[in-house]
């Protein structure tokens, strides 16, 4: 088990280098000069420009810029953004915002997804199952952008059930609406996967055997069907959780939540390579950790793939 974890962590190092280098190269390759972007088209005095260039290493060649950025990240010396914000401060303020949003949204998504998926799987072709198929089909077809703005307008502006945007009302009020929308949109895929997985497992031979040897329905359900049916779902949840960060870029912008997603959006717009790589590294690390946890959980659920 420990060897497995270590091996996975070691393998993450080269992947991390490739990811950060790739992201940095993409930002570097974006057309336009970052400082020009910052300045709009107003001429900046040469002295100010030179000072800024030196401060952000923009006068160095690509690889040197990358290595300097990585050095700053690894030594925890994050510096400031082009606009002058202290990056460490920003992270301290923003990470909780994104965590709150992501966890709340996931809670909504898992609750809805698992409950409806399991129920529909057992009561196949019932009313709930059929409505679920229809509802999830519609949800899967709605683009997030549209749903976010529509929800903001209907529930925030018109009905005033939730604040329109911002975090002034704190947790959970300010996060409820975006989390609900993300959760409801996201639950469709999860519920469908859960349902299909249950349906497949219910017909498996080992379930028939369990029933044949006289086990009660409850025991068959909890001990034999669910653990097996959950296997693909756990993988899905792991990927989904790690991918939430990407979705946060849009959600946080629309709901004006000052989290990592908004930070990323701003950094990309200003071509702040260092910040983009820092945030990508964070996303990458959370991806690695979450997937490691998923794989360990997998082993607990399914002894066949247990890592001894």
């Amino acid at each position, binding site marked *: 088990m420990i060897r497995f974890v270590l091996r996975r962590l070691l393998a993450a190092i080269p992947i991390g280098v490739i990811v950060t280098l790739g992201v940095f190269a993409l930002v570097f390759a*974006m*057309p*336009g*000069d970052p400082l*020009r*972007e*910052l*300045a*709009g*088209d*107003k*001429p*900046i*005095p*040469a*002295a*100010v420009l*030179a*000072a*800024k*260039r*030196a*401060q952000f290493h923009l*006068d*160095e060649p690509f690889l040197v810029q990358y290595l300097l950025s990585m050095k700053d990240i690894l030594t925890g010396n994050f510096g400031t*953004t*082009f*606009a*002058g*914000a*202290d990056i460490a*401060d*920003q992270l301290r*303020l923003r990470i909780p915002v994104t965590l709150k949003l992501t966890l709340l949204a996931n809670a909504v998504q898992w609750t809805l997804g698992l409950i409806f998926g399991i129920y529909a799987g057992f009561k196949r072709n019932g009313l709930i199952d059929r409505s679920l198929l229809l509802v999830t089909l519609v949800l899967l077809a709605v683009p997030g952008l549209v749903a976010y*703005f529509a929800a*903001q*307008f209907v529930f*925030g*502006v018109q009905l*005033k059930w939730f*604040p*329109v*945007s*911002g975090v*002034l*009302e704190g947790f959970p009020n300010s996060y409820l609406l975006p989390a609900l929308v993300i959760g409801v949109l996201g639950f469709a895929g999860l519920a469908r996967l859960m349902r299909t997985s249950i349906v497949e497992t219910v017909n498996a031979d080992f379930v028939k055997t369990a029933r044949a040897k006289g086990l009660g329905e409850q025991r068959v359900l909890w001990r034999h069907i669910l653990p097996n049916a959950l296997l693909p779902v756990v993988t899905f949840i792991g990927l989904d959780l790690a991918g939430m960060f990407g979705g946060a870029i849009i959600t946080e*912008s*629309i*709901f*004006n939540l*000052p989290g990592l997603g*908004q930070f990323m959006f*701003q950094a990309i*717009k*200003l071509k702040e390579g260092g910040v983009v790589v820092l945030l990508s590294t964070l996303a990458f690390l959370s991806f690695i950790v979450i997937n490691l946890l998923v794989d360990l959980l997998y082993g607990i659920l399914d002894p066949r793939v247990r890592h001894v």
Partner: protein
Amino acid sequence: MALDPPAERRFAEEVGPTVRRLTGVVGVALGLSLVLASCGDGKSSGSGSGDGARSTVIAIAAEPLEYINPLNENGSPGIQVAMAMFAPLVTTDPNTGKLLNVMADSVTPDKNSQTWTIKLKPGNTFQNGQPLTAKDYVDSWNLTAQGSTAWKNNGFFSKIEGYDALNPETPDGATPKPTAVKALSGLKQVDDLTFTVKLKVPFSQFGLTLQYFGLAPLPEEVRKDPDAYKRKPIGNGPYKLAADWNAGDDIKLAKWDGYKQTAPDADAITFRFIPNADTAYNEFQAGTVDFVGVPSTKIKSFKDDAPDQWVTSVSSGANYLTLPAWDERFKNPKLRHAFSMAIDRKAYADLVGLAEPAKALVAPDMVGYRADACKYCDFDAAKAKQLLAEAGGFSGPVNINYSTTSATGQIFAEALGNMIRQNLGLEVKYTGKQGSEITELADTRKLDGLRFSGWGHDYPSIEDYLTPMFKSTGDANFSGYSNPKLDQVLAQGDAQPDPDAAIKLYQQAEDIALEDMPLIPLITKSDAFLHSAKIEPRVSKYVGVSALWATFK
């Protein structure tokens, strides 16, 4: 160069109606008209900032500010906050367009407008109680003019004698070192309340530039350690910080009772930063903000969304189609006039929305603006064709560059392209690029074909349109235009101390530019704002819409 309070200049692909630039050094312009302010209507703000009878919540569609220091700030959001916390030397009277003294008692040029004497009113203080003296101005300006300080309004001082000594050439990649010289030789304190500014060359418009909020004085303790005061600025204006201001917080201001000049109505003002302009608009509709700029996506619907609660004003800026002087095919002025007359400005303005056809190179809210300055700006397809024939035609397709950063860039480019294609019979193609990339290509004279451009002045003078864009050394002369005759007329205007005579000379320069037509005037846009029922924003023909100066009902 830097700019003036009501307006910051920018040369952008599209001059939008709202503060689009999120962290721009530059920004936006359009003067007070861009002051997106909003006021809490007190009923559902939920923020605790809307209490009190005369409190205003001003929403700014931009990323939260990181510091408040007007001398290191030339973006619209920062200047908006500076307008509440700092007071300028002079300002534009919103009713007459004339210059009014604020901190200054008098601003007097010498015979040829080269040395200016500024006398301060006695009795003004900073918010920390220290008296405001000529030394505060001289030292604050010297600090900013020093290149190694790396403050954004450094460029403003380049007109003053001695600037070069504080800003030596730095080799590429080197960090500018503090120079031995610490003071501008042209800046001299005479007594406690008087100082003089000697310019490198005569400049009759210098008095107007003094209304820029980016020239605010900083008190001595702030000058000593500016970083320590990033988030607790000490101003000399009508409002001061009402509460601690931490990263990401709204900026909450309360009226400062030590301010002795005319102050706005509000007792308390909150600036709230909402980067997404559509979200800010929704906040207004939910009643949590009282004043908001209308984003371009809502131009067609805002009058229905908030009946009787909107104001518009002509945007202080102008929009052009820019022709490249470095492309031989565009050399002939007749060809340029042909392009201009092939454009149906009325149809184009209707497409853009909240816009009017423009027939001048300067903005309509300027003293010295002539509505029909341009003789070649009326739509006349037959005349256009004839001019094109006289110019010997045009070889190859006409390329129109548009910014992909703007959602509407391609639509507007195709609208203009169709007019050129149909009315001149030319082949047209389109190239979409990032706005900053187009600027960069134009700067290096590599851009192929036409581009859109816009300009908002830094100080309210028609000179601030003509010098940057048409003088051969102008710092926004992106068409690469040069005409010695025009440079000479501008220099005469700069040395002319009589304002009316100076304007006559600048108008001559505009006429020369219109004959050569490096830029084709297109449209003048308006900005729209929504305000809650409890306030009435100040709307001025000269300085646009201001929520800071709103009156309460």
